[in-house]
């Protein structure tokens, strides 16, 4: 029944649209249903004066006077929506999802020919979703004029969706062909919706859906791989610091998770410090990386010199002691910053998705984290391979006494190595602040996984840590769809335990003297 009513409404629109721009405005301050209707009418009329008014409504800057007159807030000043005269503040006009959906359609119609490409893209998206046959001629015109191929593609899709909703079968068929050429779950949804209403076109629609399904299958494989890599890169970041402190030094640092947490809190602090300075604010995340490294490295030095150094050669005691340190750090942060989550704003370049060829969508923040983890890994390897500090560190690991006789200050190297590992953990915290809660408990969730990665990859081998982390991430994500999130994780844990039985030294076993310890 409601479908029929809706259909009637759609057809009635152009007639009522003649009622004019002014007549439609009061509806914007009414109930949600009235608002949606008024927005649709304004979109259909196409009067450009509607754009700033609708924008104000969308952005919560619209108010209404007691007599129902509309006001717009701009730059702190309240003006009358029609006359532009200054006015007293009124009651804020609120909208809901339904109105927001209507707004998207209206903006689509009003801005499809806008000079701003971002607005044209948004308009094409909006018209794709409102998919009204009204928009067919408008979209045909826009597709013809559009020069940017990416925007033209979106417009073509919106045109296809609108044609699918048109009454003539010819137009519908054109729409089906175009939509069937995509790899979009949304297009699939539109086709299936149309299938129920058009039994005559069932065969064509089924073929189109089947074509989409094939592509979706491929897309799913690619996306699962990406998700696995993303999880793997997070494991890698969390485990890399541990691979240094545990793998190289043999120190079991149960407070490793807390180092990650401190890195995340450093990000929060840096962001808050930068907030006051406009040109610094967008740079707060890049600044956080070295800041987090320094802060956690400093904590690491203090921990190593103050406590851990007294326990060398007794890894199990170190484990217990650092557990206590972890408790103290966690509660300290809780008292200092509060138990609540802290907000970390993602810069715009880390939000949203990136569309790759083949319709594969990857989320920007995870893509950046994958890149970041590889950079951190590269820097770590470089520091160990090519720097003076790395040389001394390797010397101390291989033979402490001989290294000492060669004039290396082994105590200082120990402190530096631990600081280095802790600093890497801090940088991991910067990345994790972008996907997880920044709370005092942040680190606890990663500690066991990190240990498993290091042991699985082979203690002392950075390559092993990397391959181990990425393998575990991908395997976990491959198991997830059919085993569920929890069972997949359990399966991975049990798998590692069994693997270690077979190869106690992990994937990449160290050979030679260092391995004998």
């Amino acid at each position, binding site marked *: 029944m*409601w479908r029929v009513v809706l259909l009637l409404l759609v057809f009635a629109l152009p007639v009522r649209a003649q009622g004019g721009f002014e007549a439609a405005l009061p509806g914007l301050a009414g109930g*949600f*249903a009235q608002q949606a209707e008024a927005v649709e009418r304004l979109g259909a009329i196409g009067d450009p004066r509607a754009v700033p008014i609708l924008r104000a409504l969308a952005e*919560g800057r619209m108010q209404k006077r007691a007599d129902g007159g509309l006001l717009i807030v701009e730059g702190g000043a309240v003006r009358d929506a029609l006359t532009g005269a200054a006015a007293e503040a009124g009651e804020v006009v*609120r909208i*809901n*999802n*339904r109105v*927001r*959906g209507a707004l*998207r359609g209206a903006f689509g119609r009003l801005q499809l020919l806008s000079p701003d490409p971002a607005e044209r893209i948004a308009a094409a998206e909006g018209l794709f*979703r409102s998919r009204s046959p009204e928009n067919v001629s408008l979209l045909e015109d826009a597709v013809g004029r559009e020069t940017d191929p990416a925007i033209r593609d979106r417009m073509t899709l919106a045109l296809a969706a609108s044609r699918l909703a048109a009454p003539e079968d010819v137009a519908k068929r054109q729409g089906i062909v175009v939509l069937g050429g995509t790899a*979009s*779950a*949304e297009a*699939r*949804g539109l*086709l*299936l*919706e*149309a299938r*129920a209403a058009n039994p005559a076109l069932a065969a064509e629609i089924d073929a189109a859906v089947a074509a989409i399904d094939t592509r*979706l299958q491929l897309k*799913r494989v690619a996306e*699962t791989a990406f*998700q696995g890599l993303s*999880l793997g890169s*997070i494991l890698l970041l969390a485990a890399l610091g541990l691979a240094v402190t545990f793998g190289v030094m043999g120190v079991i640092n149960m407070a490793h998770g807390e180092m990650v947490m401190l890195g995340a809190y450093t990000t929060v602090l840096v962001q808050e410090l930068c907030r006051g300075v406009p040109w610094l604010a967008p740079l707060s995340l890049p600044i956080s990386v070295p800041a987090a490294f320094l802060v956690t490295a400093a904590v690491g030095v203090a921990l190593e010199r103050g406590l851990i150094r*007294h326990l060398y*050669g007794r890894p199990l005691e170190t484990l217990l002691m650092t557990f206590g340190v972890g408790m103290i750090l*966690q*509660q300290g942060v*809780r008292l200092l910053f*509060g*138990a*609540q*989550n802290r*907000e*970390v*704003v*993602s810069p715009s370049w880390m*939000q*949203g*998705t990136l569309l790759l060829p083949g319709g594969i*969508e990857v*989320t*920007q923040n*995870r893509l950046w984290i994958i890149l970041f983890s590889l950079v951190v890994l590269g820097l770590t390897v470089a520091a160990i391979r090519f720097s003076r500090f790395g040389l001394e560190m390797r010397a101390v690991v291989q033979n402490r006494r001989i290294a000492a006789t060669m004039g290396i200050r082994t105590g200082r190297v120990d402190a530096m190595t631990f600081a280095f590992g802790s600093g890497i953990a801090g940088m991991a915290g910067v990345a994790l602040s972008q*996907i*997880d*809660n920044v*709370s*005092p*408990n942040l680190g606890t969730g990663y500690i066991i996984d990190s240990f498993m990665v290091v042991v699985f990859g082979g203690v002392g081998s950075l390559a092993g840590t990397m391959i181990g982390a990425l393998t575990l991430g991908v395997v976990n*994500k491959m198991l*997830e769809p059919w085993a*569920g*999130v*929890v069972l997949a*994780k359990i399966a991975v844990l049990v798998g590692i335990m069994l693997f270690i039985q077979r190869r106690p030294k992990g994937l990449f076993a160290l050979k030679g003297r260092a391995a004998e310890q």
Partner: protein
Amino acid sequence: MTIRTPFSRRALLAAGAGALAMPALRPASAQSGPIKVGVLHSLSGTMAISETALRDTVLMMVEDANKKGGILGRKVEAVVVDPASNWPLFAEKARELLQVHKVDVTFGCWTSVSRKSVLPVFEELNGLLFYPVQYEGEEQSKNVFYTGAAPNQQAIPAVEYLMSEDGGAARRIALLGTDYVYPRTTNRILRAFLNSKGISDADIMEEYTPFGHSDWQGIVSRVKRFAGEGKKTAIVSTINGDANVPFYRELGNQGIKAEDIPSVAFSVGEEELAGIDAKPLVGHLAAWNYFMSVDSPVNTEFKAMWSAYIKNPKRVTNDPMEATYTGFKMWSQAVAKAGSTSVDAVRTAMYGQKVATPSGYEEQMFENHHLSKPVMIGEIMENGQFNVVWKTSSAIPAENWSPFIPENASRRKPT
């Protein structure tokens, strides 16, 4: 090899002996002296994130009561303990509050398991517990007053809204939850409700994740695919507090807009949103019985009281805090009416007690130990607050035994 111990042993011995001395247990109090209010909320561990605000709320109410001359002319004194998000420790601390500190009433618990853990203790020792969080129902104890919502006061109205024209007329529902009893029971009730509204099981997706789950990539893309079947789809989220931030981040990043696939959450409030940038979430929904943005005189007073107490303009109020406030007010009224803090007298006095609450409605305690509550649906706004888009016209009584769980027909009547 010898073990180095750089500090003097004697100093340690002295320190150790001091630390290890058994705590002296405090003497008992009776019907004179201060009225003691136990606060049983986790201050450390995983639940501290939610529960510390409730501890502060109770302390604020105690301070307020004392400013107004106490209750029954007696001073009110809070006894705070830390059950540390450890469920057996909850039971131990409950017994300590009742037997050692002799508290007259306790405000506490957040998770259902913590409540289930302390319940036998409160029943055995005839204590009084005020539980301020929305939960799955299926429980009623003479020693507990439930001031949060039962499923009919939150979950069902929210889904009705999603299915309404205003809410987007959803005909396909993804039930996402953390794997514990509240989401399981709520989703079972919702499934029965959806079936009764003509939504078949094929149009319902149900998926559970562990506590603190942070990798939502797979699930969110499965929801996207689930939505590609040609019917308007919505998400009903019973995801536990902590896992919501990464979930919302993933929704935002994968471009799921509220206009396309709206999600309604039952455990996301102002406090949770304080940890994220709310801009990508505008339009997603939450169902509660109170929002900080509610415009009512009592709420204005409540918010002013909170910011004066906590001395941090950034701290928000939320639904469980409001339920704590309401519970405390109601308990004070009942004590005044009974003229005593004795549990049996207060219990009787509680029935029918009414309080004008910050939600802007008058709520009443019924004999099923649950409050009548208004239901509100709010859309997330850019500033992390909620815009109320729908609410009931009056406070509705709780159905703690859901009619959608068939086994309730054979249930034993509570004693």
